């Protein structure tokens, strides 16, 4: 599903953010990416839908290489839930935000409305359809951000710190939603408890390199590994 070979990424200021990443993820897997701040998690995620492009190395999503020619197909396959929902909910109302991606796919309006209503209903948020995002709590905004991605039916969903700053109740809520998803999931976080509950496989990143890659329960219980990589 996802295949990354010798990915190196240098920011324009010369900072080496990713230093030779090799990774392959198969369909339906739920993979956690953990690492301290600045380890390269977010940079890696932004490569998955072609927002950032490798300095050297290659990425392909279901055997389509990520390049300008395939970019629309790639973005159709890879949904991305950003860390700050305020960055993602840019339309004036909730329903318009969910409709944004659907309309970009060129779907007819009645179908867009149907799908928007259905996804809001599924999240129990039909009452929020005409609300403005600035009147909502962070937990609610996160759910809407996810709804806006799910409605596009991507094959892969990428999450950047899905539970950061959420209160206990919203976090539990969101973890349940994450567990219930069928798509291939890539979840970057440093919340080990959440990662242990929603992923089967965990990758540890430090200074732009993959340090460890294994079953979630082994990695989360390996205190020596976690400590040397600034995760405990």
């Amino acid at each position, binding site marked *: 599903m996802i295949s990354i070979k010798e990915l190196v990424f240098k920011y324009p200021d010369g900072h080496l953010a990713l230093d030779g990443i090799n990774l392959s993820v198969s369909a339906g897997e739920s993979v956690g990416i953990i690492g301290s701040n600045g380890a390269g998690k977010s940079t890696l995620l932004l490569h998955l839908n072609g927002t950032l492009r490798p300095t050297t190395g290659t990425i392909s999503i279901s055997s389509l290489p990520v390049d300008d020619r395939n970019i629309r197909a790639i973005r159709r396959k890879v949904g991305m839930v950003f860390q700050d929902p*305020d960055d993602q909910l840019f339309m*004036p109302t909730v329903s318009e935000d969910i409709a944004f991606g659907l309309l970009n796919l060129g779907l007819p309006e009645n179908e867009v409305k149907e799908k928007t209503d259905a996804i809001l209903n599924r999240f129990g948020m039909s009452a929020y359809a005409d609300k403005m995002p600035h009147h909502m709590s962070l937990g609610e905004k996160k759910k809407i951000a996810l709804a806006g991605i799910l409605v596009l039916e991507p094959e892969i969903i990428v999450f950047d710190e899905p539970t950061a700053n959420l209160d206990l109740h919203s976090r539990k809520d969101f973890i349940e939603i994450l567990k219930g998803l069928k798509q291939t999931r890539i979840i970057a976080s440093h919340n080990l408890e959440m990662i242990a509950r929603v992923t089967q496989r965990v990758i540890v990143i430090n200074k732009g390199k993959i340090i460890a890659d294994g079953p979630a329960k082994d990695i989360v219980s390996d205190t020596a590994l976690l400590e040397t990589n600034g995760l405990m």
Partner: protein
Amino acid sequence: MEYHLIDTYSKRDSLLHRLDPRTKIIVFLGLIIMIVLTPPKQFITFGQYGLLILGLVILSRIQVWFYISRALLVMPFVLMIVIFVPFLKEGQTAFRIDFWFIHAQVTHEGLIVCWNALVKSVSSVLLITLLVATTPFNDILHGLTHLRIPRVLITMVSFMYRYLFVLLDETERMQHARLSRWFGGYIRRQIKVIGNMIGLLFIRSYERSERIYASMLARGFDGSIRRIDNLKFRAADAVFAAVIVALLTIIWETYNL
């Protein structure tokens, strides 16, 4: 934090609220143009316009105090412009002010110019305030799109409205952080710090705009924002527009007499 800036009453329900935004934009704009084109000495006509606006306010069921306080916000600017006109305009002297060292004369012509600017700006502001108070901001933008205002402008205003509140929150957090380490005094230094904060806010918005753009691209943005068309002209819109046109015709007839 929750902020309600301009469209606080726009979610209520009344005849005026239920109208299509396009109807309201066109009717209110038409009214404003009529008022602006009326010669200043038609005092009765201005009185009729006043009654018409009062009628609309009653129809809208918004709180009169809220309405007036909003409309008065622009008054300082208008006053700044017109206040000196009666003294400067040449013409027949209406009355003189002789007080201590101040000797000034006010002319009839000056008063007319002053009245003209004042009554027209106040009525325009009253009408615009009424439009904004009875229409959610989003619907106004939607209506304007249909009235062929360039999409780029609409998109810019729409983003501004969405992120104004986010920026206000950010400003407030910075302000709290600054005040919690400020122990009084050193006012000049504080001004410098506030300058830095404004710069920082600019950089943060710039970075946020890049993240927003990334998230737009991630959902297939290709240069134009598409929206579902949910505006509908109804019978009420036609009736409302017809009544206003009829009233304006009556006003026009009495003016010609």
